């Protein structure tokens, strides 16, 4: 949880797996909170936002690691942002062309992928220092982690806030939806309670491990 900077020769599997859970960008590092809270009021929106971000992250990591030798150190951040912004615009136009409904639902938040600190963070911390292959592994892992976190948010908010999952009714007609869950406060509360649950779980695991260690 605290070894955020990767060792230069870490084996491939951990590079890939790290971002998915143990160093999940949203749940552990608190990066990319803006989309994680803003568009997760349905599972479909969460998935779409996750996939768009995934695409931008992988594309940027690929280009940055490929071109890292040609990017002067002084202007690296500007260049990363330029690359990210290009991919975001491509994602924006593609969503508008192929899935207009989702494009409408995500609205301005697609463009805001540019300022998702998670993406810039991966470029600065990983892609700018590592080979293309490893950067892609890292990007895919982190991207999956982001999708998982968003869907976790979206699932809770849609089920409680609208009584549906991916549009299908879960509780039947008698369920009075907790409208607040699909509203902005619901975003903050859902993530807060997820974190609470996760840290409770980690704590318990630690205590068990300690108890077992003490017994043996």
């Amino acid at each position, binding site marked *: 949880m605290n070894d955020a900077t990767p060792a230069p020769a870490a084996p491939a599997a951990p590079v890939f797996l790290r971002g998915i859970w143990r160093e999940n960008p949203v749940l552990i590092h608190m990066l990319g909170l803006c989309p994680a809270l803003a568009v997760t*009021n349905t599972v479909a929106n969460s998935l779409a936002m996750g996939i768009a971000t995934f695409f931008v992250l992988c594309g940027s990591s690929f280009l940055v690691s490929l071109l890292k030798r*040609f*990017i*002067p*150190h*002084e*202007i690296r951040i*500007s*260049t990363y942002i*330029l*690359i990210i*912004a*290009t991919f975001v*615009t*491509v994602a924006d*136009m*593609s969503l*508008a*062309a*192929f899935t*207009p409904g989702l494009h*409408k639902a995500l*609205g301005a938040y697609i463009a805001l992928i540019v300022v998702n600190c998670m993406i810039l963070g991966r470029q600065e911390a990983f892609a700018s220092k590592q080979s293309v292959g490893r950067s892609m592994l890292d990007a895919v892992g982190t991207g999956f982690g982001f999708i998982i976190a968003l869907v976790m948010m979206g699932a809770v908010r849609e089920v409680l*806030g609208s009584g549906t999952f991916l549009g299908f009714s879960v509780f039947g007609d008698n369920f009075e*939806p907790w*409208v607040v869950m*699909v*509203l902005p406060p619901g975003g903050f509360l859902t993530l807060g309670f997820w974190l609470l649950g996760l840290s409770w779980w980690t704590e318990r695991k630690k205590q068990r491990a300690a108890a077992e260690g003490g017994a043996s």
Partner: protein
Amino acid sequence: MNAPARPEVAPWKLAMTLAVAGALAGLLLVFVDQVTRPKIEAHRRATLKDAVKEVLAIDPDAGDGSRIVSVRVDDAGLELEPEAQYEVDASTIDRVFLGYDASGAVRGFAIVHQQMGFQDVIRLIFGYDPRTETVLAMRVLESRETPGLGDKIEKDAAWVAMFDDVKAPIVAVKSGERSAPDEVDTITGATISAKGVIDIVNAALARQELAKRLAQWLQEAGQ
């Protein structure tokens, strides 16, 4: 910053690199835009056409003889276009649509307008018959009102149906107090959004006396 002594790079070289990167990014975007734009525009036209058909309650594509034409609106006057164009600037209302039913009689105009609602811009379309000064039907095309409250302007079918055959200009009354043919209820918990919709319809008809001009134009055309 504290990295092991990097060779100094000349500023012009930095600027060059950025300029080249910018140019490449621009080129790529122009290319993607070329590919996606026709699709995006085709979808926009199709959505608009469907909405026009819906508020005028006719379907020319069914081959029953009904048809839709588009009329260009500007300061000079109204002008019938040789072929229906499904493009419209919703803020200025630069185009309206005129529908004829299966018997060839005028059904009414479809007008698209947008204004600021409670959260964000609300864009809507409504059918209007200038001869009887009646709104035929209304549909919200785009809004970002609060889910569960303000979005009832889109999702509450009973409320949307209140715009069927209501006299213009519309008067907003409290929820459940509708009694005259020119009245529409507001929605409890979404008063501003509901009033916003009513205001947009009225504003569209009042904009540069659109309602009057439509009636006049129709009369001159002898229909």
